[in-house]
């Protein structure tokens, strides 16, 4: 059989075809998508702030030991320490924001009832909200991937048992489940770490269901059957074909889920079962400010706005990602 010059090569197709994978294609589409781009901007800013505050806090601990409350925040003129209470009488409490007639530029968002700079606390609040959101989502994703992949690939009674268990957890509203878990497991003294684990567990069902349905649809693909027909081992089929191909939609979902997680964690902290004072956390700040609703309105506004903008960032990015990965829109 003569094999002629093949023509696919000859200039007709751009060189990118050689290497362009689904992922690269997706990235290109995200760059073109305004929604996704804006989401990306917001996420980048929020993540940068989180990273800064994390490094700041930990560096000072490394350098000066855990006891020291000295942080880079104090070395840089922009931030004061977010937790340290100024000595009574030294700082003005309940200052309104700078644009208000009574405000000052040194406290752009004013001060809280303890006289702490509210802007600093809002900035540091990103650390808890965002890291908890991401960590808890990751935990849920991990658990959900394992359970969902096993249930979806093996099917039969394995699937049945796992799915019934998942349904059970799913039946308890996440907020309730997380609070119950956090409070009981911590023995009555809730904290952020318990909340992360609680949220992670509460979201396993969500991810497990998504992964399972993805795996089920991938499992029906002919290339899985082709791999089986070729004698490829089950383990290799799962690792090389099933997981890579079912992961993309899950990633989108995870992005959107980070927003939900932040929302829920804020709610838990707002009720007082998450981050505890004096840790700066948006939900916790709203809890504190709840008592000052009549005296200092501003205290209730800033943390809520911060939560809203952060979640919006993740939602925008998730929506953009979804559009980029949706074959129906690609047509």
């Amino acid at each position, binding site marked *: 059989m003569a094999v002629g010059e*093949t*023509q696919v090569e000859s200039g*007709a197709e751009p060189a990118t075809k050689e290497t362009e994978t689904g992922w690269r294609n997706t990235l290109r589409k995200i760059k073109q998508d305004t929604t996704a781009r804006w989401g990306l901007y917001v996420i980048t800013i929020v993540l940068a702030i989180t990273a800064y505050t994390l490094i700041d806090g930990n560096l000072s601990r490394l350098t000066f030991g855990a006891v020291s409350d000295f942080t880079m925040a104090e070395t840089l003129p922009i931030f004061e320490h977010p937790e340290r209470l100024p000595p009574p009488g030294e700082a003005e409490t309940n200052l309104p924001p700078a644009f208000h007639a009574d405000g000052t530029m040194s406290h752009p968002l004013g001060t809280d009832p303890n006289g702490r700079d509210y802007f600093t606390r809002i900035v540091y609040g990103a650390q808890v909200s965002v890291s908890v959101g991401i960590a808890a989502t990751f935990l849920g994703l991990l658990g959900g991937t394992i359970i969902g992949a096993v249930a979806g690939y093996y099917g039969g009674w394995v699937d049945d048992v796992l799915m019934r268990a998942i349904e059970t957890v799913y039946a308890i509203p996440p907020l309730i489940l997380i609070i119950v878990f956090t409070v009981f497991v911590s023995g009555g003294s809730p904290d952020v770490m318990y909340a992360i684990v609680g949220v992670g567990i509460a979201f396993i069902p969500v991810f497990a269901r*998504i992964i399972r349905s993805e795996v089920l649809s991938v499992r029906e693909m002919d290339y899985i059957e082709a791999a089986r027909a070729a004698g490829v081992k089950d383990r290799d089929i799962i690792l090389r074909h099933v997981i890579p191909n079912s992961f*993309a939609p899950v990633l989108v979902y995870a992005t959107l889920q980070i927003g939900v997680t932040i929302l829920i964690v804020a709610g838990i902290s707002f009720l007082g079962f998450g981050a505890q004072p004096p840790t700066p956390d948006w939900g916790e700040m709203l809890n504190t400010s709840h008592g000052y609703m009549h005296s200092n309105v501003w205290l209730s506004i800033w943390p809520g706005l911060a939560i809203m903008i952060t979640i919006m960032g993740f939602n925008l990015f998730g929506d953009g990602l979804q559009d980029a990965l949706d074959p129906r829109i690609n047509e």
Partner: protein
Amino acid sequence: MSSEPLLRVENLKTQFFTDTGTVRAVDGISFEVYEGEIVGLVGESGAGKSVASMSLLRLVENPGEIVGGEVTYKGETIFGLEEGPDGELRKRDDMLSNEEMRDRIRGNEIAVIFQDPMESLNPVFTVGGQLREFIELNRDLSREKAREEAVDMLREVGIPDPEERYEEYPHQFSGGMRQRVLIAMALACEPNLIIADEPTTALDVTVEGQIIDLVDDLQEKYGTSFIWVTHDLGVVAEICDRVNVMYLGEIVEQAPIDELFYDTKHPYTDALLDSIPRPDRTVGELDPIEGVMPEAISPPSGCRFHPRCPDAREVCRRVHPENRVVDTTESAEPHRAACVKHDAFDVGYDESPPLEKEPQVTSEPDADTEAGVTGPGPGPGPGTGTGTGTGPGSSGGGGEGSE
């Protein structure tokens, strides 16, 4: 055959404006449909036949648009452009408005049968209800009358026990039965023309046979004209009176059925006939057409078939042949073909040297279009992106829920 055609299409052009460029899906096709005949529109996927048929009803969806030509139905202008005072093309005054198209043409004058019987019926309404709605709308009948008519029509298209099945939902029907329902819809509106877009492609052979027989009988009974869109030459041979063969947005051959098969004038039609295995005799060796059809976004220069044509000569690369009468049948019907090898085209085919072609046995080449756009002529931009299938075969549509 009366002298005045029921439908006349002249130089119809429909284009899709996409991010990557303008797709000339239908690029200047002309044909007529006379009363009582079945006209075939044949071509491979991507030839533009479905877009062409939807253009006739002005139902091209975004980003597609009819950009030129004229469609006349019974003397009324379905589509037509004229030059405005400022030199801009604008829609003619006598062109039917959207409301007129909807109220007077779609359904009651021209009806359609779609390819996919599984998707074309609304899953949440009863089959009878959907049929009744269309009858009510297009024939101005009362609800009860329309219902009676619907039941009669279901029986007419061979649906057993129509009274019972009137109340059933589409998922309770088999594919063949659903296609019968779609045919009943088309006929029940008593149109003069039915556009059937690959109506048997999704069906099994025996069911296909049943449907073709049914259409044959009903066409005889009601005298309805058909435009039968298909890729299957077997079906064409079975049912059509006249045939238009489409290639890359153009009609390359137009002939009465017998002439098309027995006196083929265009090399593409010829090659297509040679490449299909036959059910009625054993063919030793298939003679496939080389390469694949280029994309309509940047068609080859000159004759669009020249890169794959066994008879291509140098002149084919330069000259773009329009569909021209090359022969007349005994019954004085014209036989048109868009190939310069015929005498009707006097562009020096015989003197022109044959095209040098690369040996490309079985690969589907996609580069031959740009194998050398050396000649002048209205060549399109650089290279065509072909060979690509569809987008990244993403598993798609995640989420939950089955149905």
